[in-house]
Each structure stands twice: as C-alpha cells, then as structure tokens.
C-alpha cells in the first residue's frame, strides 16, 4: 500500500513537475547569510551550505539551477510573486509555514546546545544551570528553556552579543541552536568556548515552495538520496565543520581569513563595477525619464483644464505622500499579483522615474511660474504659439531657476538607488552587503560604499556648478 502510494506520487511528480518541464530550478536565497548563503571573499562566487545543497538537488533532478538573491525580509513575497520556485535559506519548519507553503523534508537539523567557556567543566546538562547566568535573545524559546532550568537570564540583542558576554566572563552559559553555534565556530575559529551539552530540542530547516507547487515529491526524493550517499554530511562538514545534516559523516575542507585592508582593496573593483554598471545607469536613466514626466506633469498642473490639472495634482500628491521604498515594492512585488512581472532593473527604473517625476514636477512648475508674463506676451506678439514659446523663450529661462533644486533631486536619487538593493538589483550597496556578509567586516565595506556614493555626488556637484555658470551668462552679476 505504502509502496503503491510512493510509486504513484513519483509518477505524478515526474510527469507534472513544473521544474523538470522548464529544465531549471530557480532558488531564492539571501546571499548575505554566512555560512549558509554568501559570496566567497576570494572568488566572489555564491557559496554556502544551502547553496551547495540546492545545487546537489538540482543535479539529482537533472535540471539547471538558477539563484535569485533576495533580502530575507522580502523572500517569501518574492516566492509568492513567482520570482523563483523554492527558498533555500535555512527556513525553519513551523506550523504556520507548513500551512502557507510546501515545505520539503529537512536538510539541516539543529538541536539546542549549551555553550560554556572552554575551561568551564561545571556544566554538562540542563540540570547544572541552576543559579547560573545565561545570555539569551529575549524573544527566543531558548530564553525560556534556560529560565526553566533555573538560570538567571540576561537579555541580549543576538547570538554574537551573547557569545561576547560569555567570552568576557559576564555570563556563564548560552543556550542556542547547534547550527548557529557551528556557524559561529566555523567562521571565527573561536576556541575559547565549547559545546558542553545538549538540551534535546530539535529545529529542522527545509526548502519552501509555493503551496501546491507539485515540487515536494521531487525535492524529497533528491534529499533522501543525498542523505543516503553522504553528500549532505559532506557539505555540512565543509561549511559548519560539523554534521548538521541529520545524516551520517563524510569529509571536510577549511577556508582562510584575510586582513581588513586586503578585503577593502579586493572589494574596490567589484564595488566600482556595481556603481558603473548599476548605480550610475539607474540614476541617469531614471532621472532622464523622470524629467520628461516632470515636465509633462508640470504643464498639466498649469493647464487651464481642471480635469487635467487635478489629475496631475493627484499624481504629485501620491508620489510625494508615499515612501519611495513602498513604491519600489509595489512595482516589484505587488504588480505580479496583477499579472505584470517586471525584471529588477526596469522595475527600479519605473519606480525611480515616477518618483523623480513627482518631485521635479513641482520644481519645474514653480520655475515656469517665475518667468514674467511679459515674456509670454512678447513671444505671442511676434507670432509664436504655445509650444514654441515654451521651448525657445520660457524653458531656457526657467532652466536657470530650476537647475539648483533639480540638482538636489538628482543627488538624492543617486543615494536613493541604494533602495533598489531590496528588489534584487545588484547595485553598489547590495554588492557591499554581499562582500561583507561572510567576513563580518561591515564597517570597512559599508564605509567603502559610502565613499563611492560621495565621489559620485561630488562629480555631480561639480557638473551643477558648470551648468549654473553657463546658464548665468545672460544675467547681470
């Protein structure tokens, strides 16, 4: 009976599987979550436990794998929006998630462990926690476990801070998930702390797919095979220096750290490339389109037709009254619900253009209004129509008034493009995040990115001064 069910499930899966028919498995992952999903500091390649497992699964299924890097906070929205087929990012199995998504069998299994200083032999199990001080994230279930065992709990922000307090001797113990502890030990080679015992609570991590995706039979079959042939264990050893696969043992391979200066030097070109290929084009294209929108909207607002001018007024009001980040999310994550799926870069261009259009429209409108009525009349008396007057008489003079505030808009836009990192555009900030993630050198990498933004804005300010000088040639000084 069970065999029959398995066979029929297997048949159904292989016949209808959308992945096998398309020949590609699209995998959503953070890319900044070492050691599970991150970019190798030396090669820049996307690697990690979850990455390698996803690759191995695709291999078993005989399809190509394609990774789509998405911030964790929007990863499920992107899954729903069909930007990829599965999430591989240490998704912990919970009842809520089970209800909303198709969750595979676990490919990583953690359990609660007790961490102490390496030289502390007084604790080996929960029973020894009475009267000890534990450092725990206030909202985590581990906090509750430690408290019930009789420990006094110090609330901290996160795991790294907890370990730091342990190192400094301010607390005696930290209870947390074994995978997080393995990851920390593998990254830092910290040997001043050790795993002293277990608490017996398991956490299981799995792939997540859209509900009723039909992917589960394939995924589970592949995971079973990988577990059986030792591949999962080998991948776990490689990244965690421990076996967190919930499967038997295999080999291992270490990685080597780099100095901060070397890291910054190595990051200069990748960051410049991100600025040149993404940040700057995104800025220029969005600003150019935005200016055209702004001019049309400004003229519409000045129109004597109340319908036209009110539509324009409404547009400006909506754009200025809603956060740019929300506008980006609507274009990228919400439009697919209406059947409009736009790639990251064009989506960013659309959102930024519309945003610039709203702000610059008011600048252009007030610049046009600053031109004396006599200029319109003089043009009218020499026979010019509306368009020609605008083009040859009013706009050239309005430009002089509008350039300083429009430069502000442009310089803001340069920095606002960093928001595109939230919709999968690999621009300057996103690249810095990618490089920083596996190394924990956030200050150095974000600092370098900040310098790049600053240099771009300096160049723009210089250009602004030149344009202003040119436009002022006909004004008494």
């Amino acid at each position, binding site marked *: 009976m069970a065999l029959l069910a398995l066979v029929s499930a297997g048949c159904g899966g292989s016949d209808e599987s959308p992945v096998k028919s398309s020949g590609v498995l699209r995998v959503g992952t953070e890319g900044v979550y070492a050691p599970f999903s991150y970019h190798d500091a030396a090669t820049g390649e996307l690697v990690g436990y979850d990455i390698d497992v996803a690759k191995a699964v695709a291999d078993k299924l005989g399809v190509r794998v394609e990774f789509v890097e998405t911030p964790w906070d929007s990863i499920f929205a992107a899954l729903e929006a069909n930007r990829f087929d599965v999430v591989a990012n240490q998704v912990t199995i919970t009842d809520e998630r089970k209800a909303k998504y198709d969750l595979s069998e676990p490919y990583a299994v953690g359990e609660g462990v007790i961490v102490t200083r390496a030289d502390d032999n007084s604790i080996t199990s929960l029973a020894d926690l009475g009267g000890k001080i534990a450092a725990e994230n206030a909202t985590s279930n581990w906090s509750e476990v430690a408290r019930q065992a009789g420990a006094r709990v110090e609330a901290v922000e996160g795991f790294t801070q907890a370990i730091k307090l342990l190192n400094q001797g301010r607390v005696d113990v930290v209870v947390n998930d074994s995978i997080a502890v393995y990851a920390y030990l593998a990254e830092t080679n910290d040997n001043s702390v050790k795993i002293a015992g277990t608490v017996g609570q398991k956490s299981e991590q799995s792939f997540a797919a859209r509900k009723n995706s039909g992917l589960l039979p394939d995924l589970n079959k592949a995971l079973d095979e990988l577990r059986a042939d030792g591949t999962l264990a080998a991948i776990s050893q490689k990244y965690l220096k421990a076996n967190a696969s919930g499967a038997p043992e295999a080999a291992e391979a270490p990685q080597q750290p780099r100095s901060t200066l070397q890291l910054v030097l190595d990051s200069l070109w990748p960051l410049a490339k991100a600025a040149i290929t993404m940040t700057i084009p995104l800025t220029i294209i969005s600003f150019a389109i935005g200016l055209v929108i702004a001019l049309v909207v400004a003229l519409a607002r000045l129109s004597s037709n109340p319908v036209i001018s009110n539509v324009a007024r409404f547009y400006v009001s909506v754009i200025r009254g809603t956060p740019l980040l929300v506008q980006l999310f609507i274009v990228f994550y919400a439009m697919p619900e209406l059947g409009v799926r736009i790639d990251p870069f064009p989506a960013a261009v659309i959102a930024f253009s519309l945003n610039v259009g709203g702000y610059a429209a008011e600048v252009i409108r007030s610049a046009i209004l600053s031109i004396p009525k006599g200029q319109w009349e003089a043009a009218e008396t020499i026979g010019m129509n509306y368009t020609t007057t605008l083009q040859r008489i009013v706009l050239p003079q309005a430009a002089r008034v509008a350039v300083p505030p429009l430069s502000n808009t442009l310089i803001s836009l340069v920095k606002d493009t960093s928001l595109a990192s939230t919709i999968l555009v690999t621009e300057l900030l996103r690249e810095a995040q990618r490089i920083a993630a596996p190394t924990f050198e956030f200050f150095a990498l974000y600092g370098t990115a900040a310098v790049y933004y600053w240099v771009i804005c300096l160049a723009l300010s210089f250009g602004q001064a030149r344009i202003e000088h040119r436009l002022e040639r*006909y004004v008494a000084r």
Partner: protein
Amino acid sequence: MTEQDSRAENRITVEDVHKSFGDNEVLRGVSFEVAQGSATTVIGPSGSGKTTLLRALNALDVPDSGVIQIGEERIDFSKPVGKDQLRRYRAQSGMVFQAHNLFPHKTALENVTEGPLIVQKRPKDEVEAEAVELLSKVGLADKRDQYPYQLSGGQQQRVGIARALALKPKVVLFDEPTSALDPELVGEVLSVIRDLAVEGWTMVIVTHEIQFARQVSDQVLFTDHGLILEKGPPDEVIGNPKEERTRQFLQRILNPL
C-alpha cells in the same frame, strides 16, 4: 508693388469695441479710425482703458464685441474667432511694450531675428542682414551681440522697437514706450519713434508725453472711463480741448504742481 503701395492698406478701423474684465467694463464702445501712414496717440488718465485698447489691436486682450479691421484682416469679435484667424490678425501689428519685455537669454540681434527666423521661417542670411539694418536704424549696430542686461533702458527699448519692426507689420503699436525710462533716456526713444513717423509707418502710441504727442501725431484720442471722449488733430485736442475732462487732465499733466 513698392513698399509705399503696400502701405496703402495700412489703416485701422475700430467699431464699437467692448471689453470687460469680470464686472469691470474697461472699454465701453470705442470707435475710431487711423489713416494709412499716420500716427495716432492715445492719452488719458490711468485706468481709462487706453492700454486695453492698444492690447485689443494686437489681440493680447481679445474684445468681447465690436469690429476691428487692420489692413485686410477684419474681425467681428461678437462671433467666435478661430485660432488661425487670430494669428493672421495679430501678424498685422508689431508691439512695443512699456517694460520692453526683451528675451533676456538672447542677444540684441537674436531678439530681433527670433520672429522672422522661427515664426516666419525665413532664411537666416536675409533675416540677419535685415536685423542689422534695423539695429542701425535705431542706432544700435554696435550692440548686436550684447545681452539685454548689458544695455541701458533706452537701448533696451530701441531693441524692442527693432524687434517689432522685424516682422514687417502693417502697423506698429507702442504701449507707453517711455514710461519706465529714466528722464534722460526718454529723448533717444522718442526720436526713433519720430523717425518712423516721418518714414510713414502707421502707428498707435499710448503715451504720457504730451509735447511729443503734439509734435508727432496726426490724431490724438483722449480716453476716459472706457470711452473716447475727444478725438482730432493735436492742435485741437491738446491745444484747444472742448471737453472739461480733457482740460483737467492736461492741466494735471502739464502743471503737476
């Protein structure tokens, strides 16, 4: 056709023109004629409607009713007027503003060539040659490449006159051409206008320069409360006014103390 012949049609006929701004009726039935090749000055107190009258001749303010004919273009404003008709009508006249309204981002020469080049789409060589000639006529040949801010008020106004003439209008309209000028600059502008009168241009001039009006014009109109109260040769209207209002006005202008 010689230039003189083409000016045979350069006359203006205004019949019963009315114009209101909201509740304020600024022109309450104005009629007059300007003979070809003659100069008409319009005098009158502030708010009497003289500027509105001039602007109606160029359709900057479109009358509510009445008939105006300039050259061969005749419009009955009590009927709907098409855009093209209005454009042809406007092209009959050139306008010189009180505040000159030169284009500040264009040189003196470019201000003069803008209309013929862009609107009339005539060849550049020809237009520039004419523009240089016009600038010489107003005494500014050497200022052709200066921007307006580099010119004095009188020079700016003379460029404004050259700009109005460049389109070869049938009549030239002046809206208080010297009111915004420093007193010592008034003479150079008036002398240019006087030259144009001698050349035989058909002109309508709104002005407060009573002596100038007396010397240069063939006809003087005195406006008051939206009506033409008195019209005739300068020696009659200015030299020997029939109306009490005209006398009071002239008294105030000529002997302000």
